[in-house]
């Protein structure tokens, strides 16, 4: 073999070993990169799924706190009229109709802001509130159905004169939209914690006794033009919450309640 040929061979070998070395380290880097990437992706996915599920199910295994803002005064009667609950002293001069969904955040806001004032007016014999439980957001819980279950349970509490307490407690501990609501067992437990002992309450909640009537009433409410509100942009329709006086929706901006009580509300 000539000098030149040997030199070429040496060069070729050197080039080959360099390429091998580079290839080996590059392979190792690739393996490391892929392993790290797979681990990170798996961590994000597993951690994410666990977090989302725990967040969605945050009401699971909890008890709804039986707290109420105001206790009903002596002489106040809770009366069932179809699936409407009227709460007031007989002969109270003013009446409002309140349409709300237990899952609706704005309804909770209205309840937080004006609930105590309304209940004071009820206790002092000025006002009767007719509560309409609507199921506008029935499919907004996961699993769906919380609006209906809670409405039915609230109606079941009327017989024990615990409707207002039940209603207030549900708004106070309102579950988040898009998550798990409270199941029937939790609703029953709340009733017991509020002092309901009648076994008929449990049966009514479990059987969904009022479900059909609630849904029928909601259809009528949705189609009632007098209850429609103007949300701007040509969007007119029923929404929650709605307050109505003499069957007609009124604005709940500002001091509407004082207006109603003074007879100047419209």
């Amino acid at each position, binding site marked *: 073999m000539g000098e030149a040929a040997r030199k070429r061979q040496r060069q070729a070998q050197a080039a080959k070993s360099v390429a091998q070395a580079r290839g080996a380290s590059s392979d190792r880097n690739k393996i490391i990169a892929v392993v790290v990437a797979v681990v990170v992706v798996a961590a994000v996915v597993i951690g*994410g799924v666990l977090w*989302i599920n725990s*967040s*969605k199910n945050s009401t699971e295994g909890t008890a709804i706190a039986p707290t109420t803002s105001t206790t009903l005064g002596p002489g106040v009667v809770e009366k069932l009229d179809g699936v409407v609950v009227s709460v007031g002293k007989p002969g109270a001069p003013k009446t409002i109709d309140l349409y709300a969904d237990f899952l609706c955040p704005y309804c909770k806001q209205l309840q937080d802001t004006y609930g105590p004032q309304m209940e004071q007016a009820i206790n002092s014999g000025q006002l009767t509130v007719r509560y309409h439980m609507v199921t506008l957001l029935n499919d*907004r819980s996961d699993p769906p159905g919380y609006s209906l279950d809670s409405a039915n349970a609230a109606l079941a509490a009327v017989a024990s004169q615990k409707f207002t307490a039940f209603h207030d407690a549900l708004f106070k501990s309102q579950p988040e*939209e*898009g998550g798990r609501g409270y199941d029937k067992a939790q609703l029953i437990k709340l009733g017991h914690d509020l002092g309901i002992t009648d076994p008929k309450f449990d049966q009514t909640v479990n059987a969904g006794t009022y479900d059909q009537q609630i849904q029928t009433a909601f259809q009528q409410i949705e189609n009632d033009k007098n209850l429609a509100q103007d949300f701007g942009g040509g*969007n007119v329709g029923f929404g929650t919450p709605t307050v109505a006086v003499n069957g007609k929706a009124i604005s709940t901006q500002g001091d509407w309640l004082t207006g109603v009580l003074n007879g100047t509300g419209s």
Partner: protein
Amino acid sequence: MLDTIGTLARLGLAAVWLISGAIKLAAPGQTFIAVQAYDVLPSALVRPVATALPLVELVLGLLLLFGLATRWVATAALVMLAVLVAGIAQSWARGLSIDCGCFGGGGHVAAGQTEYPQEILRDTGFAVLAVWLMVRPRSLFSVDGWLGWGRRRAAVEDSAETGSSAALANNAGIAEGK
């Protein structure tokens, strides 16, 4: 220069996915409502999609941030954007009044408050970034670069773009020739 543009596109798109994914992940209930509002999926699929969506977005964002498998990730990002735009477009066409919930929020809004054209335009802008990275995935500070993935292709592109590889070849020839 082109590498710099690629880097900005990569990091920009990464930021889009990371931010949108994180906001959605932080509010699972809201994300559920947003997905439901498109009114496309059967109710049994709303929760799985609402769970997967933010996680897929975060994974895309992380891979883009580190610049791993950029071309494939950019392709996946483009497919994802196409699906999202299709969702927005069908809501628009059907006259639904929803917010896309692209960066949190979402769900039904008043009829006058929809922003379908803006939302689609914005997603189209993101799609341009994805297309750039599909066509030319090379960028600075990427794991791809560190691994040498796409190096040969990049060299070919360089010679086409600047002719610099010819100069490199000359240098190599001189070094070898002595």
